[in-house]
């Protein structure tokens, strides 16, 4: 290295003008490396444990999806892709996808808006600690218990929510879970009640890390609190929010506990989301091969959608900032 670009980018400050000491030769540096196998041995216990609890079941799932799985003395019969092929003619399977996507989209939208709003309110509250504890309670309840809880609240005879919705005129004579029109929204409400606090919690952690001086600089620049939120807070909490959304999205795609407790997929097939259908096929009809095929497709789609979600949510933020159009 004999020349170096000026670190400040000011011609007057270029180091070349004054000259400085440089080192042209690098000595042979003795840097002993342990053998490659050493690392393999170190990693082995973890790899073995992981293989036993995740990789083996996963391989078994793939095996099942290509077989007609037998019970008792019956042996497994290889059926090729027949399990998969049949899925495309299975109306319950396709309908399960539709319901799952609708359910997930509505849940995420409500949870993000409500979760972030709550976080902002909590962040400005003097009673933050108490309120956070209160808001976290739904998350600590087991999903099945949450399902049963709402089962009572929705009850057509003595359910409190049922009474409120009917009094408000939102609901006609039928019960919430008994009607194909409202049953899905019934279970969405359970999810929103239980998991909005997670978004709130993660967003709140993000809001705590928004640099105070950026907020103050923006205020001095002439911003009010709304502009402050969209120009400074939101871009700063965006990575946190993205993680929260991703977590919720993946959770939604394997959500089953509360539905089983509330509707079991009914009325008709109105709440038979794909995971519920998967449960039915595998553990009610014991078609483990077809169940395996459904589970595998669900897994692959979850991974692909997850990656798309990250891309879609990440890119606009970057593009937006790059183009300089940050008026929100």
């Amino acid at each position: 290295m004999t020349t170096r670009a000026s670190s400040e980018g000011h011609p007057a400050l270029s180091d070349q003008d004054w000259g400085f000491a440089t080192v042209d030769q690098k000595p042979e540096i003795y840097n002993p490396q342990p053998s490659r196998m050493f690392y393999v041995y170190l990693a082995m216990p973890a790899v073995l444990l992981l293989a036993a609890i995740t990789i083996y079941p996963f391989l078994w799932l793939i095996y099942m999806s290509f077989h007609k799985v037998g019970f008792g003395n019956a042996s497994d019969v290889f059926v090729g892709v027949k399990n998969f092929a049949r899925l495309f003619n299975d109306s319950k399977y396709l309908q399960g996808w539709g319901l799952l996507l609708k359910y997930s989209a509505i849940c995420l939208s409500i949870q993000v808006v409500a979760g972030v709003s709550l976080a902002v309110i909590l962040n400005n509250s003097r009673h933050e600690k108490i309120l956070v504890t209160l808001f976290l309670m739904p998350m600590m309840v087991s999903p099945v218990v949450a399902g049963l809880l709402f089962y009572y609240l929705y009850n057509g005879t003595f359910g409190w929510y049922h009474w409120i919705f009917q009094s408000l005129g939102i609901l006609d004579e039928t019960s919430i879970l008994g009607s194909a029109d409202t049953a899905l929204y019934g279970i969405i409400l359970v999810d929103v009640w239980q998991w909005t606090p997670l978004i709130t919690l993660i967003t709140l952690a993000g809001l705590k890390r928004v640099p105070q001086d950026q907020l103050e600089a923006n205020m001095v620049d002439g911003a009010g609190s709304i502009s402050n939120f969209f120009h400074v807070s939101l871009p700063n909490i965006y990575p946190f929010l993205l993680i929260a959304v991703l977590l919720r999205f993946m959770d939604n795609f394997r959500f089953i506990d509360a539905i089983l407790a509330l509707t079991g997929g009914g009325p008709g097939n109105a709440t038979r989301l794909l995971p519920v259908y998967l449960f039915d096929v595998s553990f009610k009809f014991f078609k483990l091969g077809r169940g395996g095929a459904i589970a595998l497709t669900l897994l692959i789609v979850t991974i692909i959608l997850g990656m798309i979600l990250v891309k879609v949510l990440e890119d606009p933020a970057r593009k937006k900032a790059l183009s300089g159009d940050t008026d929100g």
Partner: protein
Amino acid sequence: MVAVSFNNVWKDYGGGAIAVKDLNMEIKDGEFVSLLGPSGCGKSTSLRMLAGLEHISSGEIVFGDKVVNDLPPKDRDIAMVFENYALYPHKTIFDNIANPLKQSKVAAAEIERRVTEAAKLLEIDQLLERRPQELSGGQKQRTAIGRAIVRQPQVFLFDEPIAHLDAKLRARMRGELKHLQFTLGVTTIYVTHDQLEALTMADRIAVMNDGVLQQFGTPQEVYDNPANSWVATFVGEPQMSLMEMQVTSLEGETALAFGSYTIEVDPKNSARLRAAGKKDLLVGVRPDKATVSLDESLGSIRGEVYSRQLLGADVLVEVEIGKSRVRAKANTSFAGTVGTPCYLNFGSEDLYFFDAKDGQVIPQ
């Protein structure tokens, strides 16, 4: 461009933490005033009260003839440069600088013109498409200044803007900031803990300690006539030395007793000490007004070298005399090392006199 004044301003954070006590200050239109003091002295709090980022516990802050106590920052027409620059990491340099204009809904073409102009002035016009994290400290700091000057505000507020730059760049930025402020003619309040920054840049310096304004005057006044012993030792580098002396008399003339020595006092200071009528004094001498030598001379005081620090062009010698330590600058050829007996000399006309009880200066 507007005059700014603090009228009996207090800031009480509660729980006995009073950051600013009864601050009174008149800052003229277009003036460059530096708030100087150690950390925790209330200078940043004062600045933040001006910006509207802190509430005032009592008193009033006036811009021109308008009391701004309850105005939010966005309505005060101020620009502020923060210690950590406070750039928006998700925005480009252009958008960072343009932010104040966008907030006040200026037309796009006008924004473009003014941002480019400010960037040219600060020599960051080739960086406008970049992000703050791609910039060096000096460039970030220029961006922060760009954001402040782009709007032509009434008042500039600087909160230790160059404290985090390296020494070389800091020296350069001092000159540039001073030039910029003079060119733009905007009333400027500049907070710093570095007395050199205050002395070199400000039209007037407000020295604060423990929430109280100690002295408000031009750099020359603060340096030559410090209001008390605290200001005297805080301003000036290397620091002024203080010695405990008693007023006594020698053959009918006023003199100073320093340990076993009796020091004659020139007629002017003699009259001044007589008029004050104090007995116990703190007497200060700046290192460049004291000389140290290995040879005894008329009126010199004997001591021992406590330390010898090379400053480059000369050496700073700390001389221990009894329980006092007095700093003196000497030529680099000064041969004394730690423990060497040496002789200190200073003229009484170069001394600073303070009351030993309250540290206040003995009036001229």
